[in-house]
């Protein structure tokens, strides 16, 4: 089994900031907008290097989405940044009309997603955003797992023509993927090959799944770990192939059950490769204040819970 090493904890939002700067350097059409969260979204470097291409919108997210759509119509590639809740739930209709139906080349940079936003509590912890964005026809939904991958996903989002929802987080987490691996929209990434069970994970749960696989190995269970950084389009072929091989599946995500990756994977398998599936997610609940790691454990999203779910899935074969 391939061992992944944490090369030093970093927040995925800083990966976005680094990717945005690179995308801006590569293409003069890349512009950025924020609703009073430039620092939180790590957009400072871009704003400093390209002040004329950076637009502060104030605390007015609805207008920001529309303005970004307008910029996109004139040929710009706008990244709009705010907290996940405020660039999805708060502006769902604006995204639906101006970005998705309007088919504008807008990139929604969604930070502080999920329960690991932490201490601010449930008002700011969206566990529903993937569902909202997946529901929109044509919307690409990306949820990279660490700093390096988020940087590459940002660059890929800038190069892709069309609406993209790019989800990342607040806390410092292990950084373990290859910094030079280009991000391919629509492709699943096999992190570890295995034969007894497949662990599909996305975002912060990818590291947890890798830890779970190590624990399972100690128990004599061979787990395949697949990073689903591209939730839509979904790599159906990779999902079916792995489920066919292992015969048992776990889907882990820092998101609630309804409309999340779990349902997406289950739908693929129901159609093409019926397989026992166990779900590791926030179920049907709101979050609460706490440290990111305490919340991941309390809501059952960490490595021990993934390992436990793997054993349940295997038992159902």
């Amino acid at each position: 089994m391939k061992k992944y090493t944490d090369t030093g904890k970093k927040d995925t939002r800083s990966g976005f900031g680094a990717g945005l700067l690179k995308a801006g350097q590569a293409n003069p059409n890349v512009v950025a907008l924020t609703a009073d969260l430039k620092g939180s979204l790590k957009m400072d470097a871009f704003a400093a290097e390209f002040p004329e291409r950076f637009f502060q919108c104030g605390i007015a997210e609805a207008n920001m989405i529309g303005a970004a759509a307008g910029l996109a119509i004139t040929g710009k590639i706008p990244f709009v940044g705010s907290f996940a809740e405020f660039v999805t739930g708060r502006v769902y209709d604006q995204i639906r009309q101006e970005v998705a139906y309007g088919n504008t080349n807008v990139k929604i940079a969604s930070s502080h997603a999920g329960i690991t936003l932490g201490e601010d509590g449930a008002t700011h912890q969206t566990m529903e955003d993937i569902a909202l964005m997946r529901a929109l026809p044509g919307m690409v939904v990306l949820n990279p797992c660490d700093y390096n991958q988020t940087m590459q996903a940002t660059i890929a989002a800038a190069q892709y023509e069309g609406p993209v929802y790019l989800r990342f987080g607040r806390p410092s987490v292990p950084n373990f993927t290859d910094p030079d691996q280009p991000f391919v929209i629509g492709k699943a990434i096999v992190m570890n090959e295995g034969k007894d069970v497949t662990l599909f994970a996305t975002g912060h749960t990818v590291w947890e799944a890798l830890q779970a696989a190590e624990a399972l190995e100690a128990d004599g269970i061979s787990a395949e770990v697949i990073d689903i950084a591209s939730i839509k389009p979904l790599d159906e072929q990779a999902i079916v192939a792995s489920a066919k091989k292992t015969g048992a599946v776990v889907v882990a995500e820092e998101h609630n059950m309804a409309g999340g990756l779990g349902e997406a994977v289950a739908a693929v398998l129901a159609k093409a490769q019926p397989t026992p599936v166990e779900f590791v997610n926030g179920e049907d609940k709101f979050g609460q204040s706490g440290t990111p790691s305490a919340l991941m454990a309390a809501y059952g999203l960490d490595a021990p819970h993934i390992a436990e779910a793997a054993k349940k899935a295997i038992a159902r074969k």
Partner: protein
Amino acid sequence: MAKSIQELQTIATQVRRDILRMVCMAKSGHPGGSMSSTDILTDLYFNQMKHNPATWTRDGKGQDMFILSAGHMTPVYYSILARTGYFPVSELASFRQMGTRLQGHPSVRKSLPGIFQASGSLGQGLSAACGLAMGKKLDKDDNLVYCLCGDGESEEGQIWEAGMFAVFHKLDNLIAMTDWNGKQIDGPVEEVSGIGDLAAKWEAWGWKVIVAEAHDFEAIEKAFELAKAGKGSGKPTMILFKSEMGHGVDFMAGTHKWHGSVPKPEQLEDALKQLGETPLGDF
């Protein structure tokens, strides 16, 4: 070449005929606001905007751009786009029919030339227009961006977000207009919500504000002239056009009841008789 006042009046009459015939054929649509904004949009598209239907592209490069924020006013919008040459006038007969490019509200997904952005969910078009204006500034493109809002639509908070934003970013290449007809679907605006003194509000927001009569082409032309002079001032301009819902047909004028209702066949006949035929001809 600029149209004379008389020519504009003829076009506006034909556009009102188009509006009524379109909604009657579709048995749905929004004639009231379309008829209150007919003269404004006739003057805008025939005498004000720098645009070329033959070379139109969605990015609007090198041309003026227009967003219909009050997206339900598609009857007037489509009639004017057709009559300025964006697509065949005969296509107006397909309005709201299955498979049409002339969707109930503007769509960019049907390859209909002239449409820069989808609209219809109210309050959003002014934000998109701000984005277009910023894009033009980044491109050092000197052309203007126009946007038409409704007064009822101005109850949406996002309109005022865009209002602050346009001033903060000094979008003096943006000319917004409000079709201030005082009516919305549930009744007179002041009875439904009470938007109050729009002129005072937009002035307080920091916009250059022009109030003009909406059914007097001389007044409309003067308002646009004043608005265009605002370029370079660092301020966006709002023209508040005092208009009448259903203008041009006696039984439709001045009431909210025709916001989204369609005349019966005998009412259509009466309305067309009142408007009179024009040399431009019906679609």
